[in-house]
């Protein structure tokens, strides 16, 4: 597979949140504002990239039987680094993301990529895979948070969209809003996919009919 494909599969075809439904907890909890979602996405991408690079570089050294603990220690070290960097340079963002920064350790996407991809591939493809998955996850978080922030508080990244606050639906930034938004987005994506499948089926049926008609008329 080419490097471009390794990158692009994480964004659409195997988007970790929308297609594989992994990493749900942060996607529901911190998507109350677009800024939080972006911050979380960048922190997550950094950890995923670093752990993918290190794990693919060490894949021949790490013994098969204790690989999972090894991966967890590597991931936890990078999460600790990220935590310290954010605490030092972005204290406000760190405070609003709170517990979900240390919880990147147990995000199933990172361990999943380590097990499914980085442990079997060389450094460069693993880097592209991590970058694609990270960007895909960040995009998904931003999409979810856009709906929640605009509908819930009437702002987008802190800028006012609806001046009249009576139109803001508070429930969208309360916990139920997270479930509703993600459920509706997943349903919408399913609808698109079903349409596509139906269209393909209809197209092939049409082709068959034409073929049959052509054969009948030529006979």
């Amino acid at each position, binding site marked *: 597979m080419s490097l471009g494909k390794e990158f692009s599969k994480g964004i659409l075809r195997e988007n970790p949140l929308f297609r594989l*439904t*992994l990493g*749900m*907890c*942060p996607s*529901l*909890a911190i998507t109350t504002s677009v800024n939080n979602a972006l911050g979380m996405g960048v922190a997550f991408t950094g950890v995923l990239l670093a752990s993918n690079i290190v794990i693919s570089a060490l894949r021949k050294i790490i013994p098969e039987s204790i690989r*999972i*603990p090894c991966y*967890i*220690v590597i991931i*936890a*070290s990078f*999460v*600790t680094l990220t*935590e*310290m960097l954010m605490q030092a340079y972005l204290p406000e963002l760190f405070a609003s993301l709170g*517990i979900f920064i*240390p*919880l990147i*350790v*147990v*995000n*199933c996407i990172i*361990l999943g990529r380590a097990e499914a991809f980085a442990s079997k591939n060389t450094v460069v493809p693993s880097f592209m895979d991590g970058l694609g998955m990270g960007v895909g996850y960040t995009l998904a978080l931003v999409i979810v948070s856009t709906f929640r922030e605009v509908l819930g508080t009437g702002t987008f990244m802190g800028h006012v969209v609806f001046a009249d606050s009576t139109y803001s639906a508070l*429930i969208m930034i*309360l*916990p*139920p*809003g*997270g*479930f*509703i938004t*993600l*459920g*509706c987005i*997943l*349903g*919408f994506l*399913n*609808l698109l996919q*079903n349409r596509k499948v139906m269209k393909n089926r209809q197209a092939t049926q049409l082709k068959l009919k034409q073929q049959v008609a052509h054969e009948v008329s030529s006979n």
Partner: protein
Amino acid sequence: MREMVIIIIGAVLINNIILSQFLGVCPFLGVSKKLSSAVGMGVAVTFVLTLASLITWLVQTFILELLEIEYLQTIAFILVIASLVQFVEMVMRKKTPDLYEALGVYLPLITTNCAVLGVAIINIQKSYGFGETLANSLGNALGFTLALVLFAGIRERLDFADVPQSLKGMPIALITAALMSIAFLGFTGLL
């Protein structure tokens, strides 16, 4: 004692770990297709979460804080949880094979359950003492079990419901969870 009861009620109903704090959503959606497996998962999580919170509290107080290496918290806690799960699995297989048969499949899943690490960190952040840590983690574990079992009951019935084609599976499960979450919002003024 009174304080402990308040902490437990708060953790189970008001700040439910899944429906208002969004910790442990993956097993909540993954293991809720059958009522029996939901009960199994709930019991396994209750056991591991309570034990892990107490041990991580001891590690934090008597090792990390004494040596002033609190920055190693994340690494230390995840290692404690991972080895604890492994240890519980080994002991269970040896001593209570029946229980192992029933809960064994859920145990490895618990290591990457963010509820366990999450509650352990929250206990430290709120600077709870040992007793409060016990109450808070027990309450959170019971809240997890309650939400999981209720949700599994609804999902079993949902299989027979007439759901639009594109909402089948995960989307309708999420919307159901949203309705449950709204119901739990009603407990806000309880205490």
